[in-house]
Each structure stands twice: as C-alpha cells, then as structure tokens.
C-alpha cells in the first residue's frame, strides 16, 4: 500500500542529518514552508547547505533557521529583504557562505538536477562578474555559459493539497520552486493544507506527480510570514 502521509512536521524532518543539503521552496513568503522550517529548527540539524531563492524576512521561517546558525552555506539569487538583517549580519561577519546565482539559472540548475541533465548552457550572466571562472562556448554566433545541475538530499515544499500517493497541487504563485525542487531532491517533503485519498485530485490538474514526492504532511492552517513579521514574532 502506498501511503506517504506522515503525522506532523516533526516526524517529517526527523531524519535530516547534520551537513545535509536542503532545498527550501518559496519566493518571499509565497510558498514558504514555515512549519517544516520551524520543525527543522527544533530538530537541530547543523552545517546545512540551503538552496532557496531568498534568505527570509524578520526572524521567522528561513531567516530563523539562519539566525539559529544551522546553515553554513546558501545558494540563492536574492539574499536581501527590506525587513531582515539576519543574512546580512551573518554574511558580513563571515559566518555564512553565499553562492549567488541568477534566478533563472538557479531554477534551471534545479530542473536539470531533477531531470538527470548534469550541465547546460545559458545566455544569462554572460559578460558579468557572475561569469567569472565559468566555461563559455559559442553557439550560432552567441556566447553562453556552462552551468551545472543542482541536487539535494532533501526538499521542503509547501502546496495546497496532496493525496496519499504524493500528488500535489499548489496555491497561486506559491508554486514557484516547488515542482522543480520536488524533482531534484532525494527525499521531498511537502506540507499542504489538506490531504485527500487517491482519486481526490483530478489527474488532469496534478502539478507534481507523486513519483517526485516522498512525504506529505497536513498543516491545515499554515502561518503567513508577513503576518508573523508584522507582529514582531521570532522563532523559536
């Protein structure tokens, strides 16, 4: 019998070891799996490499994970927000390593990782400082940069609904990195507002097919980062 539902966020992240690479979905607060991130803080794994578009805001969610000094490296496109000093403080004091990647290159590296394509050429960043040290090649008279795939040990993602086979649908622009991270991680963990029985999601509208998803966990009323930040909340 296939049943990917786990009891709660705590059980879902319990086997993430020190030194793991973890993809964390979300673009800003949209699609950010806050409950899974908070469970990871409680769990206590250290020296993590985090792959995520941003570095969180305030001192909750992703920013709280960084603040707790559990992360040694981030691979990210935009580690700046108007309302968080967590990443800038760590970066300036040399406590965290940053690999800065153009957003589309980050997405394609993750997609390639999930699709079994070890490298690809892209026109983005040609002639810029982010091309330094990268192999380039000309195709049809234009220059392109060679980029490597990205894969991870775990992915933490937020969706709207899943079935117990792991099929997932997302909510609006909260989809962002979810489907490609689900493909690129060895163990993909998805928090959703509701879990239904197989057949409860129309196969025509499934976004992440269950083969890419290992664990689903129900968080019926997830917190919103902007509301927590506005309330001055911190975690833990």
């Amino acid at each position, binding site marked *: 019998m296939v049943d990917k539902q786990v009891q709660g966020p705590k059980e879902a992240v319990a086997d993430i070891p020190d030194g793991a690479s973890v993809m964390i979905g979300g673009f800003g*607060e949209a699609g950010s799996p806050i409950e899974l991130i908070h469970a990871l803080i409680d769990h206590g794994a250290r020296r993590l490499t985090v792959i995520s578009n941003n570095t969180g805001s305030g001192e909750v969610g992703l920013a709280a994970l960084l603040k707790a000094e559990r992360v040694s490296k981030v691979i990210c*496109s935009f580690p700046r927000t108007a309302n968080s000093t967590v990443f800038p403080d760590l970066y300036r004091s040399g406590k965290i390593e940053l690999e800065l990647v153009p957003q*589309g*290159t980050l997405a394609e590296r993750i997609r390639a990782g999930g699709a079994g394509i070890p490298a690809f050429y892209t026109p983005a960043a040609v002639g810029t400082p982010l091309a330094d040290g990268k192999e380039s090649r000309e195709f049809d008279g234009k220059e392109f940069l060679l980029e490597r795939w990205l894969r991870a040990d775990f992915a933490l993602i937020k969706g709207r609904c899943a079935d117990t086979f792991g099929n997932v649908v997302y909510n*609006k*622009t909260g989809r962002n990195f979810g489907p490609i991270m689900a493909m690129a991680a060895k163990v993909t963990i998805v928090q959703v507002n509701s879990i239904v029985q197989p057949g409860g999601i129309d196969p025509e509208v499934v976004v992440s097919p269950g083969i890419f998803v290992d664990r689903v966990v129900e968080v019926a009323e997830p917190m919103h980062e902007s509301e927590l930040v506005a309330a001055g909340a911190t975690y833990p």
Partner: protein
Amino acid sequence: MTIHREQIGRSKDEMARRLALDIPDGAYVNLGIGIPELVARFVPEGRTFVYHTENGLLGMGPSPENGAGDPDLINAGKRQVTALPGAAYFHHADSFAMIRGGHIDLCVLGAMQVACNGDLANWSTGEPDAIPAVGGAMDLVAGVKSVYAITQHCTKTGDPKLVERCAYPLTGRGVINRIYTELAVIDVTPAGFALVELSPGVDFEYVRERTGAPLLRR
C-alpha cells in the same frame, strides 16, 4: 522666501505614460521594480498588455483591495497582486523558459548606468560590504526580445547615468534597446546613443550636456 524648483522634462508618471505608447497591443510584458511598475497604469486605450511576473504568473492585475489579498499571490517585488481573467500560474523553470526562450516581447527595467553600446548595470554598486543580490535581471536582459530602460537622466548627485562605459558591475552586455528619461527618449544604435525625441520644453543641448557619451541627432 520660498524656493521654487522647476520640474524639467517629464515626471515619472509621464515617463511611464510615454513608454506605454510604444508597446503594441497584445504584447507580453515584464515590468521591473520601481519606475517600471508605473507603466501598468498607462495602458493606451484599445490595447491590452499581458503582464508576466517571473515568480510565476501571466496575466497579473493590480494590487488587491485592502484585506482581499492572498500571501501566495505576489509579484516579483513581493507585493500582493491579483490575477486577471485569462491568467496562468507556472513554476520557475517554465517562467524563465518564457524569458530565456524569447517568448516575452518586452522587459522594462530600471538602470544605474547604461552604456552607449547597450551594456546595462542595475544590480550592484560593487562596494565590498554590499550584499550581492541579482534576482532575475540577468536572465531577463539575456532573453527578452526588447529591453527598455526607464530612469532619471542623471544620478541624485548629477552624474550622467548614460555613459561611455559602465563603471558598475554589468547585468548584461549590449542588451538595452531604448532608454526613457525625464529629458528624452534615446535609442541605443550601432553608432551609439541616438535621440528619438526630446521631452516637451527640453532642448537638445541640455540633454547632450547631461549625457556621458556622444548623442546623435537624427
């Protein structure tokens, strides 16, 4: 004593309105953060533009009424928006396939510097203590069919932003097609900056003196 500081050339709204006149009906358009966002307010009558926001939405509409928003429905500037009838959501790899694959017709970006060969610098001053952050700018300029810059003609300290060669780290090489400032509309051509039109009440010499590279008058 009152100090009256005269506005020379177009206001930011007028710059955005002027740019919107050059967008054809039915275009797929990506607007950057800041002045570019104003363009959405000035769609000429009888035309429809479809706005792409790179975090995963085609058919982006205006900000929601207070309290009616969804934290999962935001634009690339992380502000809450709405989805218009006919909108579509998609994941990041598809979104940047639209960008790099040449499917987006026009991108409008802010600029720190634009060089007369079309080089753009708009993501970093390169200062040692700056937190580097690039987002999707490098993908957009590399892949979108036309890239327009909309910017003040000079910095707050009066230095030209249209220059011979960018001093700041580049976002892309030879990527800007046209520039809209409060003083003029200027094309980037193989021969360098070329005036398209002056803003009302602005004369050519005034623009030329404030441009950091030769300005051709066609």
